[in-house]
């Protein structure tokens, strides 16, 4: 394992595809491919109408590479607090290639091994979005009334 920069190319086509898929959903207010300061990311902002007022921004950021690597992070601000977690597929010394960095800060030391579906589109569909749905439900339970 190298500690220098990973040399990999962004999979623009797959990120574009995912951007269109997210753009079709009512729960998504905006998708932005490679916005300023995020040259590798598809940023997906969820519609704030769907979660309690205390929660500011909820967003996903997706990175995909032509070597099969990906990083999908969830970001949430709540009463000024920032939280994030991340689903990863890439080689590194601390975990299996597929792994998850849990809330609250996607810390490397807290990462847990996982095994995801082959296609990133399936990982989003079967792992990431069900998690997000559940998270939004639990935000209502803690802040919703």
């Amino acid at each position: 394992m190298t500690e220098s920069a990973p040399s990999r190319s962004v999979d623009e086509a797959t990120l574009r595809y995912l951007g269109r898929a997210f753009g079709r959903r009512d729960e998504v207010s905006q998708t932005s491919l490679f916005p300023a300061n995020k040259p590798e990311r598809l940023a997906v902002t969820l519609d704030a109408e769907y979660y309690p007022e205390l929660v500011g921004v909820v967003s996903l950021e997706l990175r995909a590479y032509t070597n099969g690597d990906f990083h999908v992070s969830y970001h949430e601000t709540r009463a000024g607090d920032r939280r994030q977690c991340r689903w990863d597929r890439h080689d590194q010394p601390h975990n299996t290639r597929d792994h998850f960095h849990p809330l609250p800060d996607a810390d490397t030391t807290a990462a847990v091994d996982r095994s995801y579906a082959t296609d990133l589109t399936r990982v989003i569909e079967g792992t990431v979005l069900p998690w997000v749905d559940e998270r939004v439900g639990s935000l209502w339970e803690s802040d919703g009334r």
Partner: protein
Amino acid sequence: MPADGPGEEFGLAEGFSADLDAEPADERVYRVALQLYDPAGVSEIAERASCAPDTARRHLKRLADIGVVERVSESPLTFARNESYFEWRLRNRLEALSRDELHERLTELTERESAFRERFDAESPTDVDALHHAEYDDIETVWLALSEWHTVRERIDRLEAVRRGRGSDLSAEENAA
């Protein structure tokens, strides 16, 4: 409908999944083709695209004709994503930009690249030892930044290539005139 109460209406997974399932078979095979980073056989691709192997084979042949995928082996028949096709598409997209737009993008990327140089005090991302810039719990953040730097450099190279190509077209036109 936006919710006024507990988020039962928030069903991103279900809606996203229903949209993907509702796509016609050729689109589903294309979606898998995009993600064939490693070669795969027809039956595996069919399974990933939720379609019959014959359907997958037919669409894969068409995608191979266009150049989206390439045949990696004949027996067994396997396909992989054809990287040169996607590179060609990226360049094509840039060809459509005006001279000013091209210049603007290059300026923006060059500025970003100098910011990375400054942040890591290095000439290129491969010169950086991430451990020198991070506590262990933060190392992935540094890797991600270095990966972005690498991407910025790739984009600069691609833009430069397009600009050079255009420059020689222009001088050829001028000579003709």
